[in-house]
């Protein structure tokens, strides 16, 4: 990476694995899991958070010296809420069906702990460029988990990816279905998102044993 120094690149790559916001920092699970029954919704949610966190981090970082520390939470909430309103209006204008699927979960990006957490922990103490990279990195780490969960739930639950059938046709009995494969409708139920995240944590921590809690 010619553009980025080694330290800056680390800001982006760290949250992708060893300091992942969802599986390690346990932030931002609130608005994430309910919408992962479809891959498309997961991707859109990831992009929305990328936008809000990237820009929000820069704004907060630029204002960090003029925000009185007593009212900083309210200032942060106002910044996030304005950005989320933009996302919500754009979605309603260009992807109405999807915004119906996501329903209140777009609004819940405001209280997504990743965003407040990164504002508090990083943007209030670092310059705009670093904060931007940190925002992008954490949002990508969030999106990776969301997409992984969405991938497995949609693939195993309805046999499609992005709405396109990939395992053959369950009605015509082609592809995998011809040898007796069945969709697991249970994967579409909300609790399975939690269990899949639990399994992802399991895999990640058995590969990197330093992360194990006691």
């Amino acid at each position, binding site marked *: 990476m010619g553009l980025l120094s080694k330290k800056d690149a680390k800001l982006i790559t760290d949250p992708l694995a060893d300091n992942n916001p969802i*599986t390690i920092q*346990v*932030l*931002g*699970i*609130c*608005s*994430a*899991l*309910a919408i992962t*029954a*479809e891959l498309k919704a997961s991707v859109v949610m990831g992009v929305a958070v990328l936008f809000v966190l990237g820009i929000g981090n820069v704004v907060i970082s630029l204002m960090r010296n003029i925000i009185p520390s007593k009212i900083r*939470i*309210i200032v942060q*909430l*106002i910044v996030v*809420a*304005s950005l*989320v*309103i933009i996302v*919500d*209006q754009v979605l309603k204008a260009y992807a109405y069906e999807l915004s119906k*699927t996501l*329903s*209140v979960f777009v*609004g*819940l990006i*405001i*209280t*997504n*702990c990743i965003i*407040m957490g990164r504002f508090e922990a990083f943007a209030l103490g670092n310059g705009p460029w670093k904060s931007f990279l940190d925002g992008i990195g954490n949002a990508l780490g969030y999106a990776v988990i969301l997409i992984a969960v969405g991938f497995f739930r949609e693939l195993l*639950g*309805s046999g499609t990816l992005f709405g396109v059938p990939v395992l053959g046709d*369950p*009605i015509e*009995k082609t592809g995998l279905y011809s040898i007796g494969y069945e*969709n697991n*409708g249970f994967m*579409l*139920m*909300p*609790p*399975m*998102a*939690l*269990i899949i*995240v*639990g*399994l992802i*944590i*399991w*895999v*990640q*921590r*058995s590969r990197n*044993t330093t992360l*194990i*809690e*006691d």
Partner: protein
Amino acid sequence: MIEHIELFFKSIFIDNMVFAVFLGMCSYLAVSKKVATAVGLGAAVIFVLAITVPLNWLLDQYLLQPGALVWLGPEFADYDLSFLSFIMFIATIATMVQLVEIVVEKFSPSLYNSLGIFLPLIAVNCAILGGSLFMQAREIETLGLAVNYGISSGIGWFLAILAIAAIREKIRYSNVPAPLRGLGITFIVTGLMGIGFLSFGGMLTGGDEEVKEEPKEVVAETTEIEAEVDNQIKIVN
């Protein structure tokens, strides 16, 4: 009266904030290591939801909905301020939490000692904003129902965090595989509890109501059912 009872049980069991829509997961996972603290946070959530949901209901009804400004005069009937609802709701919540904290500290120091430390945490708890947003999305009709909705979803959240805290206290003595310890097993246990709560789905409405509210899943399910039916027909033929 009957709709009050129905909404009450529905918000606690069927649309449980944690198990059905994953609201307030961050504090649910972070503060559930001990039963005592979990009870404190749960009580604070009930308290704040009971105040903010009706307040935001009034705000929605008389300010934000399309045509809500009509009480100012007929020429305001076309206004639609609903795009402002996120910012208004979160501002109300943040102010109310601050206010409640000040009032409680002044009048009941003992309550403040047990609840107080949780109140600032709650301003950014997804369950609180989620309560208001779902109240808006589900078009709760009267102020009374809004109060009911706030309290009962709070109780649902309270039950969930109480249960997981009790389970986590016991899990400490079990031999969980090392990489699953802590966070991983909590996720999986919550998922299993969620599956248990799914069984409340048929309690009030025979499942019909649920079908209306989650069109996404229904589509998938109906196509499956259709597929099944088609298969059956083919077998018969």
